[in-house]
């Protein structure tokens, strides 16, 4: 097989700039790809690793999108929640109710508007308190980590949608991502109230752009997992919530002290992971 076969399908691309995507979700995807395809997919040294990652992702139809925002400390949570909620709005359905003969009916998803306190922005989110709580918890942890990290304040939060693939014993279930959203955050410090006021408006406008980007991606109608049968539904959807049913997702984050070290640590990790096979 080799690398060339892995190159079919869609590539991963960055919204902001043309560069290979290096993020936690990617490394996992890469790992899964390597597992499947065997050692022939081992990347060559660091320079080509990026491309290999892209190809690995392509093989698995895993989309990767990257968004970048610059916000002030107080705005981190709201900005993240706005983006994550918008993505999850598109990636949630109503609860499935399976009936006989393999048909199912779908519940209703409600929405509510949320005004941001520190940003001139309003977004619509799914009306589900459980979902909101889960996201707030993740974003809260991210924010704390970011603020405690140091003065640079650069980090990224990753929302990954995955499918579970049952493996035979003794192997544990695989989580195969099919869409990864990475939001890079750059925290700025502002000196006075006037700057903060301007920041409110500017970040609001930026978030508007991000949401338009998200919607654009969503409406390409690219790969989505097939609608599962009743026995498979937990491999595709998170059925644990009582009022809505988002696709299986996980949120992770990564903080970097300075831009340089982030690339190094991830690259190091990639190579280590590959060699660990």
């Amino acid at each position, binding site marked *: 097989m080799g690398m060339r076969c892995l190159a079919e399908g869609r590539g991963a691309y960055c919204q902001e700039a043309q560069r290979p995507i290096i993020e936690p979700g990617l490394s996992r995807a890469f790992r899964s790809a390597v597992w499947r395809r065997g050692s022939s997919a081992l990347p060559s040294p660091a320079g080509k690793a990026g491309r290999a990652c892209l190809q690995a992702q392509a093989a698995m139809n895993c989309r990767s999108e990257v968004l970048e925002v610059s916000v002030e400390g107080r705005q981190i949570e709201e900005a993240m929640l706005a983006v994550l909620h918008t993505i999850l709005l598109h990636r949630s359905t109503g609860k499935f109710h399976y009936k006989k003969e393999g048909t199912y009916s779908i519940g*209703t998803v409600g*929405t*509510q*508007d949320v005004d941001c306190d520190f940003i001139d922005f309003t977004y619509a989110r799914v009306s589900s308190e459980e979902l909101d709580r889960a996201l707030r918890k993740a974003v809260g942890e991210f924010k704390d980590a970011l603020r405690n990290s140091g003065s640079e304040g650069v980090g990224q939060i990753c929302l990954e949608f995955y499918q579970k693939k049952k493996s035979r014993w003794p192997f544990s279930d695989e989580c195969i991502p099919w869409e990864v959203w990475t939001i890079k955050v750059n925290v700025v410090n502002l000196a006075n109230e006037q700057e903060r006021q301007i920041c409110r408006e500017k970040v609001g406008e930026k978030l508007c752009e991000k*949401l*338009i980007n998200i919607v654009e991606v969503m409406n390409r109608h690219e790969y989505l997992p097939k609608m599962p049968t009743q026995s498979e539904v937990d491999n595709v959807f998170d059925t644990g919530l009582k009022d809505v049913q988002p696709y299986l997702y996980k949120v992770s984050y990564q903080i970097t002290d300075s831009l340089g070290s982030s690339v190094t640590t991830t690259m190091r990790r990639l190579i280590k992971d590959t060699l660990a096979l």
Partner: protein
Amino acid sequence: MDTDLSSQDRKDLDKFIKFFALKTVQVIVQARLGEKICTRSSSSPTGSDWFNLAIKDIPEVTHEAKKALSGQLPAVGRSMCVEISLKTSEGDSMELEIWCLEMNEKCDKEIKVSYTVYNRLSLLLKSLLAITRVTPAYRLSRKQGHEYVILYRIYFGEVQLSGLGEGFQTVRVGTVGTPLGTITLSCAYRINLAFMSTRQFERTPPIMGIIIDHFVDRPYPSSSPMHPCNYRTTGEDNGATYPSVEDSQEVCTTSFSTSPPSQCVFTVTKAHFQTPPPVVMDTLKVPMMGLAFSHQPAALGVGSADMGYPVIFAGGLNAAHPHQLIVPGKEGGVPPVPSQPAHGTQADHERMVMCTPLDGALYSAATPSSSEDTETVSNSSEGKSASPHDLLETIFVRKVGAFVNKPINQVTMASLDIPFAMFAPKNVELEDNDPMVNPPDSPDAESPLQGSLHSEGSSGSSAGNTHDDFVMVDFKPAFSKDDILPMDLGTFYREFQNPPQLSSLSIDIGAQSMAEDLDSLPEKLAVHEKNVKEFDAFVETLQ
């Protein structure tokens, strides 16, 4: 491969597209109502929620959309368009956005109608929910009420983008391929207002103008009437009543605190359509609810002359009765119900504001075309700053003139030393500045907008800053900013929180001590007893 659509699929597809169009209009108009929308998720399917999304149906909007579509579906060359525009208190209007639902010829024959198309339409609606909050007009519509309102208009046919000015931008919400063509939903929005919007509209506090509400019934050149983005409207435009509106209205009474006997108490009711109203979360600058006051009939005449002024406030009463109660149905000043004084329609059959018998007292207090109405309003409020505003009483001095848009002499209450100074006669001065009385020179399209907004600029900022305990950052209480009274509610409250002591209660001032008073009493009584007959005669004259 079977290239023709089966008849069942065809029927389904047509149904999907039709309901998609209706839901699209609902989402767009609801997003421009000026308040936050909240609907509940439900795990058990109700069967009536199209596309598995909880989107309420405002009957009037559905009616308008159906009217515009008149049985057709979007097809090539025939697009459904929702035009959102802004109309200022001075009558200037400007198109803000045009949302287009178009169909083109690119067919996707292999797609499954009942499944994939349906789900993709659902996704597209979700995208629409997201995008409608993101365009510049959203923030404008959240601040509508006093200086301007947002109107919508639905038409079917060719898309007309010329009213958006130069350099308008387009955002594509999404596309869905179907066997009959590709449905595209996009929005073209004006950007050269966006510049002004957040800065200027924000700084100016609401002008306490008299708002007359009525629909524009006259057809615009494109022959479809504009409607205010206010779901609590009476569906009057052509006298049609919407049975569903009446059936589903629940009247809830907003009661006011009792005011001292010299003032009036009235009950305001507002109706909600169908299900419980969306949760109105207090985010707007107006924490108060149910503030009402009356205005002059003269204003009615002046204001309504050429306006398609949409409903902002409920006019509650007889069309014949010149006075109208204006009630903000919710925070932010978008009123519960519009009425149509210009058309002489009562429109109160669906009116939300009803006055209790006491309003007779209200009106008798007001003199017809004299210069001032005085009225006390007590209001209750909802929202974060609820408690301080409960039982708050405010006194307004109203003057003639709809949307009196006068530049406030930069005198706020904070700068006035005299207590109750607002009652000091200022008529002459105000009259001179009243643009309704001395109309300004006719300005360009842009400048009245700016002018009206800037007039409140300085007082607005000061008002915004003087509040502490019960207001949010940009506190702009509705109906509390009065062009006559150059102060707003918060300032008033703070100003008069601690009125000066009555002189009779302060001992220092009293010349005599209590003991002396008591001593002199018997003498006074003796004197009075002598004059008993005079007193009796006097009493008899009174009877």
